[in-house]
């Protein structure tokens, strides 16, 4: 590789780092992304002019098709389909890594017999992790877009089979280190790895997919870094490490905020400890409230906090929420949004939806910021959130979510909960908040109820 290309790759790496640094604040985020885009462009152009390219047909065709598909996905994909899209992308990224690995194996191995220990190690790691990520991400995509039954699929001896598969693939990897030219073993290992990807995602429910996606992000990053080792390309190593770190940290954040042990997550055993909800019943008294009364309560308030959750996303109610916020604003009532780190089904889910509805990002407050001031809140409106406001996490030691940080809505003077029924949320557990004396339940689909409420305000 010539010196100039190396310098170009170095600059590209720096631009990627600066790009991600930009995401530390919404203000600098777009500039950061422009850095990253320039970096990518430089890396691509640097590669094209490096003199290694002899035929252009396939490159041009590939880039053209890829750009068309990529652009179409970016333009037409609704924001709510983001998790699916991200899952699919991991599959693409990992696929490219696997193919480059296979090609390297053929090139260096079959044609030139130059597979050093280091090289086969890198290639082996690359295809192992890559292949697993391809099918794992496709499974996640399928479950999220409901192409595959999203409920956990379990059967007897599942763990045992997974462990056997994993160790067989790993054994082949070790074998290849010593006998790198046995291509049957090489391809069988890839095949096994594809299988493993499917099998580890099978037992995981659709709602747990975001954790899987983040882990796949991390694995794809590792595969790309390994590619860098295989073809001695430092920008791949750096970009791969950045991706790996990103996926890793997001899964840590999610598992902490969901009160799951991280080891649980790391070994793919996210599983589903869904509790049987049927036992829950509406025995204890609850207070219902209607649209008109809700309007009346809100009008009396000085400070209103809105807590959005998964239900808001499902109901696509973000724009109507915005209208409500505008109405309150007009009346001089202060409106803030309290965002729990794992509200919804994807890290940052609520922020994207509310931003889409044109809500200023400085109205979106993190849990740590809003909690200390919660007792001066007059009305807290909970829109399709459940687990993230469950006070059992603070008070009930026997609760499965005990210790999980929550938004302390129960400290507000009045709490209005919008949901369709008394059904439980993701964690499948009862929520004592609903029975608290200062809580009023406003039943119905979030979007419909909000539309009625806004209409009431506009009267």
């Amino acid at each position, binding site marked *: 590789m010539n010196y100039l290309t190396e310098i170009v*790759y170095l600059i590209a790496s720096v631009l990627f780092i600066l790009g*991600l640094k930009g995401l530390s604040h919404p203000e600098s*985020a777009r500039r950061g992304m422009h850095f990253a885009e320039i970096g990518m462009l430089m890396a691509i152009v640097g590669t094209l002019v490096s003199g290694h390219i*002899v035929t252009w047909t396939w490159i041009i065709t590939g880039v053209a*098709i890829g750009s068309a598909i990529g652009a179409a996905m970016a333009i037409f994909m609704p924001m709510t389909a983001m998790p699916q899209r991200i899952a699919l992308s991991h599959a693409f*990224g990992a696929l490219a890594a696997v193919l480059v690995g296979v090609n390297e194996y053929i090139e260096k191995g079959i044609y030139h017999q130059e597979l050093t220990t280091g090289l086969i190690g890198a290639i082996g790691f690359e295809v192992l992790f890559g292949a697993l990520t391809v099918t794992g991400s496709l499974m996640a995509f399928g479950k999220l877009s409901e192409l595959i039954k999203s409920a956990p699929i379990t059967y007897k001896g599942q763990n045992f089979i997974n462990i056997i598969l994993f160790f067989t693939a790993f054994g082949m990897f070790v074998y290849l280190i010593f006998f790198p030219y046995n291509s049957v073993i090489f391809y069988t290992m890839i095949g096994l790895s594809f299988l493993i990807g499917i099998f580890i995602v099978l037992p995981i429910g659709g709602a747990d997919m975001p954790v899987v996606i983040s882990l796949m992000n991390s694995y794809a990053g590792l595969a790309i870094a390994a590619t*860098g080792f295989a073809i001695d390309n*430092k920008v791949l190593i750096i970009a791969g490490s950045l991706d790996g770190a990103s996926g890793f940290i997001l899964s840590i954040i999610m598992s902490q905020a969901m009160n799951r042990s991280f080891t649980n997550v790391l070994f793919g055993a996210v599983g589903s400890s869904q509790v049987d909800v049927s036992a829950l019943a509406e025995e204890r008294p609850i207070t219902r409230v209607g649209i008109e009364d809700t309007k009346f309560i809100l009008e009396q308030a000085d400070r209103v906090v809105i807590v959005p959750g998964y239900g808001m996303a499902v109901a696509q109610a973000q724009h109507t929420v915005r209208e409500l916020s505008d109405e309150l604003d007009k009346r001089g009532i202060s409106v803030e949004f309290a965002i729990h780190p794992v509200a919804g089904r994807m890290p940052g889910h609520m922020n994207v939806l509310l931003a889409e509805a044109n809500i200023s990002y400085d109205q979106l407050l993190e849990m740590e910021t809003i909690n200390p001031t919660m007792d001066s809140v007059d009305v807290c409106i909970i829109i399709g959130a459940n687990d993230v406001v469950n006070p059992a996490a603070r008070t009930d030691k026997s609760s499965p979510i005990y210790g999980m940080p929550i938004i302390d809505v129960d400290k507000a003077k009045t709490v209005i909960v919008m949901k369709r029924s008394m059904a439980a949320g993701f964690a499948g557990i009862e929520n004592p908040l609903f029975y608290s004396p200062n809580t009023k339940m406003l039943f119905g689909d979030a979007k419909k109820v909000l539309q009625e409420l806004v209409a009431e305000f506009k009267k």
Partner: protein
Amino acid sequence: MQIELIYILILAGFVGFEVIRKVTPTLHTPLMSATNAISGISLVGSLVAAGSDHQTAQILGFIAVTAATINVVGGFMITERMLKMFKKKEKKQS
């Protein structure tokens, strides 16, 4: 295998760790799609394969180029689309 590459891997890991930890939770979704886009860097390896003179390499490379390009183009475009939505109140929005 060069030891330098391992140094680079580990240092880049540290950088990644520190930088990502500072990403505001507000932008975690754009972060996911941005890293998607950056993962398209495997394009660099794919281009060389697709542009070589071996036929197998061309075919493998072609598929890899297509897949990686989808990530690069799609990833950056959708990240931009999302980030554009994050606006500060211009006056009092509306």
